[in-house]
């Protein structure tokens, strides 16, 4: 009996062991970072936020477009990496009518989706109408509301009519809502993306990596790197260790700028520092509480030494901005001089407002840059008599509920990373609860006007919200990329939603 039992136990253990040999299989083997230039070149890039699934039509967040836009999915237009201008992609050219409401696109010929289907004007109509339908659930779909109708004029000509002139619509077409989908390729977007781009999805191991392979049937110039693996690291130290030990070739977004020093002196690596669209914003509740008084807001802005804050909280990497506009936007103006560091002025303003000793609820997002910046802000505010009680809230779950939806806060910190999101100041329901008709009118003017009118109006918007102290802009997050010396074509500034893999190469 005992011998039988023993044999049974051994048998169970062995079969268990054999099954366990495929543990963590997911689908494909680990991409290694052995690179050879030319035909079989490969690259491994590290990122921090992993996509939950591959369907950005129903799942919000920056992670999915970062990986798939421009690389797997393409739109009619895209943003030029160096100039920030809107340039042709799947549309060869387009004309805009006199009243600026009708756009006629001439599409490229010979373009195929990765499932073999041809890309025609029918797909453009399908994709645009799909955004407006229930198939898309993310809030960014609002950007397509201005489209009144889409007409197929021929297999390569399509006419889009807007209900009113809108500059922001063409810009929105460079973002994820402008991605072109195949009429026959949308049944499993969460796992099987079908696009016209230079890369196709080869495999995806959740919790580990997404592997993209060069699309050999791509309509345009094929990218230099054949296989790109995107690996996700939640721990920033694990990512830098992976680069140091050679497991990855590029750190796509360095989350810990203090770690930069170990790379700047190392000959094996190159460091790229540029701008992003991420404004780290100190939000004020403009509607209720002590911060609804403009003097209190101005006092807070004068009490903060922004350079010192940047040096302490983000190792001096980043840029100071005076409004909700990054330097890569056409209407950027340096407004940092509007509120110089002046604690005496801050105290005077507070006294005027009748708040010599003030307590504010400082409910921030529990993210590294926010926590670091909040400590400095609180310390600086203490010097002018303001006690800021820091309460880190779990992000996104609690912060979204308490601060963003209910506006139950006095001050908060979060980075706003969407491109051209200054328009949120035209929405009185947005969590800053800033209600200014002049700004709303200016935003409408900018949207409807010519390019020059847009620039003028947007400059005025930026200046007005700064003068109104609607928020304080602590700094602009830097685009920090660290890579092995031989990697070329890395983007200096992060201007859109995508991490453009098509320009990468190895020397």
């Amino acid at each position, binding site marked *: 009996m005992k011998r039988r039992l023993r044999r049974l136990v051994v048998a169970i253990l062995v079969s268990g062991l054999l*099954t*366990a040999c495929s*543990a*963590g299989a997911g689908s494909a083997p680990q991409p290694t970072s052995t690179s050879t230039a030319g035909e079989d070149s490969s690259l491994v890039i590290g990122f921090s936020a992993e996509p939950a699934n591959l369907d950005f039509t129903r799942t919000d967040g920056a992670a999915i477009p970062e990986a798939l836009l421009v690389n797997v999915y393409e739109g009619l237009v895209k943003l030029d990496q160096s100039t920030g201008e809107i340039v042709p992609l799947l549309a060869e050219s387009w004309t805009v009518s006199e009243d600026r409401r009708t756009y006629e696109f001439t599409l490229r010929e010979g373009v195929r989706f990765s499932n073999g289907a041809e890309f025609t004007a029918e797909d453009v109509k399908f994709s645009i109408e799909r955004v407006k339908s229930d198939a898309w659930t993310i*809030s960014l779909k609002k950007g397509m509301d201005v489209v009144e109708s889409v007409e197929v004029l021929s297999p390569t000509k399509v006419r889009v009519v807007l209900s009113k002139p809108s500059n922001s619509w063409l810009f929105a077409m460079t973002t994820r809502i402008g991605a072109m989908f195949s009429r026959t390729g949308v049944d499993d977007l969460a796992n099987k993306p079908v696009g016209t781009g230079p890369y196709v999805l080869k495999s995806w191991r959740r919790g580990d990596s997404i592997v993209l392979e060069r699309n050999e049937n791509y309509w345009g110039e094929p990218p230099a790197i054949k296989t790109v693996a995107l690996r996700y690291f*939640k721990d920033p130290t694990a990512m830098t260790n992976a680069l140091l030990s050679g497991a990855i070739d590029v750190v796509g977004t360095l989350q810990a700028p203090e770690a930069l020093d170990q790379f700047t002196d190392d000959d094996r690596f190159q460091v790229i520092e540029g701008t992003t669209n991420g404004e780290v914003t100190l939000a004020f509740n403009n509607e209720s509480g002590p911060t609804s008084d403009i003097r209190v807001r101005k006092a807070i802005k004068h009490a903060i030494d922004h350079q010192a804050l940047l040096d302490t909280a983000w190792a001096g990497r980043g840029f100071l901005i005076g409004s909700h506009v990054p330097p890569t936007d056409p209407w950027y103006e340096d407004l940092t001089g509007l509120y110089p560091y002046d604690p005496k002025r801050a105290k005077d303003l507070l006294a005027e407002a009748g708040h010599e000793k003030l307590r504010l609820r400082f409910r921030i997002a529990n993210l590294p840059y926010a926590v670091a910046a909040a400590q400095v802000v609180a310390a600086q505010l203490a010097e002018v008599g303001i006690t800021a009680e820091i309460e880190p809230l779990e992000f996104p779950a609690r912060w*979204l509920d308490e601060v963003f939806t209910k506006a139950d806060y006095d001050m908060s910190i979060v980075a706003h990373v969407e491109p051209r999101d200054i328009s949120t100041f035209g929405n009185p329901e947005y969590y800053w609860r800033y209600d200014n008709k002049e700004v709303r009118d200016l935003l409408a003017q900018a949207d409807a006007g010519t390019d020059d009118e847009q620039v003028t109006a947007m400059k005025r918007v930026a200046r007005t919200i700064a003068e109104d102290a609607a928020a304080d802009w602590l700094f602009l997050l830097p685009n920090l990329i660290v890579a092995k010396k031989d990697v070329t074509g890395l983007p200096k500034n992060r201007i859109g939603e995508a991490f453009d893999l098509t320009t990468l190469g190895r020397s």
Partner: protein
Amino acid sequence: MFLHIVHRTLALVLTLLLASIAVFLFMAVLPGDPARVALGVNATPEAIAALRAEFGTDRPLLVQYLDWVGGLVTGDFGVSYVTRAPIGPQIADRLLVTLWLVGSAMVVAVVVAVPLGILAAVRHRRLSGILLSGLSQVGVAIPNFLAGILLVALFAVRWRLLPSGGWVPPAVDPLGFLQRLILPALALGLVQGAVLTRYVRSAILDVLREDYLRTARAKGLTLSGALRRHGLRNAAIPVVTVLALQLTTLLIGAVVIERVFVIPGLGSLLLDGVANRDLLLVQGVVMVLVLAVLLVNFVVDVLYTVLDPRIGRAVA
């Protein structure tokens, strides 16, 4: 003996039921709405309401609970709010990974603790024994993530002998798998080994003081012979108990280690699930962990009757 097993099985089922209620209620009262998190910033109230209906989170709690538990019993863990993929296969895949990690950590712990513990006990009056005891004290004090970071800094970054993290299934690349397993298993296992050493040492010391051991030596056996024949089996009981308890500690420690070494295991799945308010996923993972711990304790209980037949007889 049979009745003993029946009792234990009933206790297992009851504990699982209670655990399911506890974890469900806990997730239900946790602030933060899964629909809002999934839809992100700028979500419209209509979209949130629609998604809530799709998830079923707008139904009464009792209905949600019964639906979920009913599914569990048939092996259906539900569909994840975030990935929209079935949860069962995801948990299974990640569970195997964590089992490899925890299993190898246990092996490391036992391999370290048993010989060192015995030595420390046998030589407890000599310098070598005292030093070993002191060393184990130091080991107990080190947090396992610190051990992990140090190991990575030395072996992966400084000397480039081993990869700094990641995971390859053993069937796909056995060498790569082993290379990636060594450091995390050491980080988890060495620290637990230090804890276990102290238990082994005290268990052996107890045995050394027993009459039957003195009798065995009087009959002519050497110390090691006496230990091997009579002592170890008796010392094994408290040690096996501790090993079962340590499993829980290892599972928790695995969560941190998985983060440091970027291993796609159950721990990281759990952390992600909580951050995303992926309620069904978190509940599923917690139930699996509870089941794992309960099963191990169950097996240990049964093992006792093998190690010490008096136990089974006494209970029955």
